[in-house]
């Protein structure tokens, strides 16, 4: 017996749209997670539709495991239902009239499996994903996290060769987001096929993907590991991504159950990650600039992190202002132009940056 061929996706797609053509080339090797990262309307969802066969290509090809799913030049086009694909849609699209179990069993039933067999396999998967107790619930009775797990089960139950995740965390609140992110990392690392996720959230991309592909206005503008892109951004959008606050240091557990990332430049309080067994070096915390609030006086609110410093630079972009603060540790905030005016921000002025512990996403070293 020879080993099964390494799964791989090679796609070169051209899909016309009203505003611009989406022209994207993708190579995803086995065992890697690639994130298509780009602003809203950049053509990411169009790419997913094209790969899934829901939108025809005008030109190009989609080859998965050396099998052409679509090849315009050769006149090959496999309909959506015959592609070995599993999708988690942005708003999940769980079938509202089916229970969680029936939703998860759908891909097997659609492929002709018997009811018992389909339900047994779907039930096992729900069990593994920790939602077996909700198997008989309808989607509108599920919490955000539960619904996400059911959607994952539905996308994986038929053992697809290509897993497509469309903004997998965007529908969740901050608390279940951390939980699902951990679950996703675990699932993704165990999934043997090609993993492709699309997102507009740099933190989501950097915490889940091995490689990023930046997409703007239907074109790939840069690709590389998160590290490479952080070090050398090539477009304004990439540069904005670099603005993500990154805290790298030693994660230590505190007496009250929270965690703290200790760095030479200062400390940041974080929520203790459920998958951390103890204090560890090389942890990374990521924080969106938009999650940082600014105050003239030290605020009395519930934020665990309040860091004082001077405004180092102000960059205005349409109605948003990015504020770089020379503090310990340094922090970048993004606020509205109106707030900036209200706070009377100017370079060199004193300011307090505040953010909650749960808003820092913590990545543990592998």
């Amino acid at each position: 017996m020879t080993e099964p061929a390494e799964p791989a996706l090679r796609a070169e797609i051209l899909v016309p749209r009203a505003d611009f053509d989406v022209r994207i080339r993708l190579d995803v090797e086995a065992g890697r997670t690639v994130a298509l990262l780009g602003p809203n309307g950049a053509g990411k969802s169009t790419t997913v539709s094209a790969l899934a066969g829901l939108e025809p290509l005008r030109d190009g090809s989609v080859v998965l495991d050396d099998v052409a799913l679509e090849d315009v030049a050769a006149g090959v086009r496999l309909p959506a239902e015959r592609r070995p694909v599993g999708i988690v849609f942005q708003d999940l699209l769980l079938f509202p009239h089916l229970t969680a179990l029936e939703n998860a069993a759908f891909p097997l039933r659609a492929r002709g499996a018997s009811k018992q067999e389909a339900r047994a396999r779907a039930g096992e998967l729900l069990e593994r994903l920790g939602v077996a107790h909700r198997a008989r619930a309808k989607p509108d009775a599920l919490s955000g996290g539960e619904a996400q797990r059911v959607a994952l089960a539905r996308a994986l139950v038929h053992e697809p060769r290509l897993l497509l995740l469309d903004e997998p965390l965007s529908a969740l609140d901050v608390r279940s987001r951390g939980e699902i992110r951990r679950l996703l990392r675990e699932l993704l690392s165990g999934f043997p096929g090609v993993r492709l996720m699309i997102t507009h959230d740099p933190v989501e991309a950097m915490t889940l993907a091995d490689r990023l592909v930046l997409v703007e206005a239907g074109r790939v503008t840069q690709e590389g590991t998160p590290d490479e892109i952080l070090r050398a951004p090539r477009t304004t959008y990439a540069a904005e991504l670099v603005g993500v606050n990154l805290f790298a240091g030693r994660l230590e557990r505190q007496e009250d159950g929270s965690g703290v990332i200790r760095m030479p430049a200062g400390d940041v309080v974080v929520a203790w990650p459920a998958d951390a067994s103890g204090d560890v070096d090389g942890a990374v915390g990521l924080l969106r600039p938009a999650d940082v609030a600014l105050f003239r006086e030290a605020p009395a609110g519930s934020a665990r992190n309040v860091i004082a410093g001077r405004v180092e630079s102000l960059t205005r972009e349409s109605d948003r202002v990015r504020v770089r603060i020379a503090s310990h540790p340094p922090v970048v905030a993004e606020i509205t132009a109106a707030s900036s005016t209200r706070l009377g921000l100017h370079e060199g002025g004193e300011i307090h940056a505040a953010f909650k512990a749960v808003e820092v996403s913590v990545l543990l070293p592998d």
Partner: protein
Amino acid sequence: MAATREAVAPAGAPGRAAEPPRRRLRSAWLVLPALVFVLVPVVALAVKAPWSRAAAALSDSGAWTALRVSLEVTLGAVAISLVVAMPAAWALARTDFPGRRLVRAFIVLPIVLPPVVAGVALLATFGRLGLVGGLMERAHIHLVFTTAGAAVATAFVSAPFLVLALESGFRSIDPRFEDAGRSLGASRWYVFRRVTLPQLRPALAAGLVLTWARALGEFGATITFAGNFRGTTQTLPLAVYQALQTDPGAAYVVSLLMLVASVAVLVAVGGRLLVR
């Protein structure tokens, strides 16, 4: 201000918060004209009916036979409507083609067409000298003056209601559910049966009730195209019409029978869909 509003708000009814507040009771009498307008004739029917000989009146006027014919004709009409309306409604809701609005206008034309015109038009089509009448005669298909013909005439005027109900039903279902189904390995037909149709159920139920109610009351097209023959094409409305000329008392009783059927429809299925 905010505190007062909070104190006044009813506790334990969070789901109703979005509903706009109803006006005061004082203006409720404004419903009276409409209520009286509908209720008085209904009561008059009950008052004037010859209750003492109701049973005899029903059998003498052929009402029981007419009831059977009505059931056959209306169920047949609903079946024909379903077959015609389902694909049309799907296409109108899910596709876009040049002239779609014009096509839609033609399909719902029978709603505004006087039923007697519909009957004449059907005669011009299926009558012995009609457009396709000769062909059908040779194929031994007889519609004129038959129960099947009454069902066709009834379907002609009631099917558009089903098209409209189903079209709006399809429109209320996010087409991306169908995309999701196909991306998960389901054929178009499987997606229609297992994803679209179950979600269409409320619209389908409402549409079928509406169509059946319209079919039950059909008079003009049926009598014009299929005639008024006891046992084959004389439906309840036709029986009422005939009784009115010979024995008005019997007409009242049969009318009451239909009234009860209508109320039953409203309560059984329509109540949930039409009343809020």
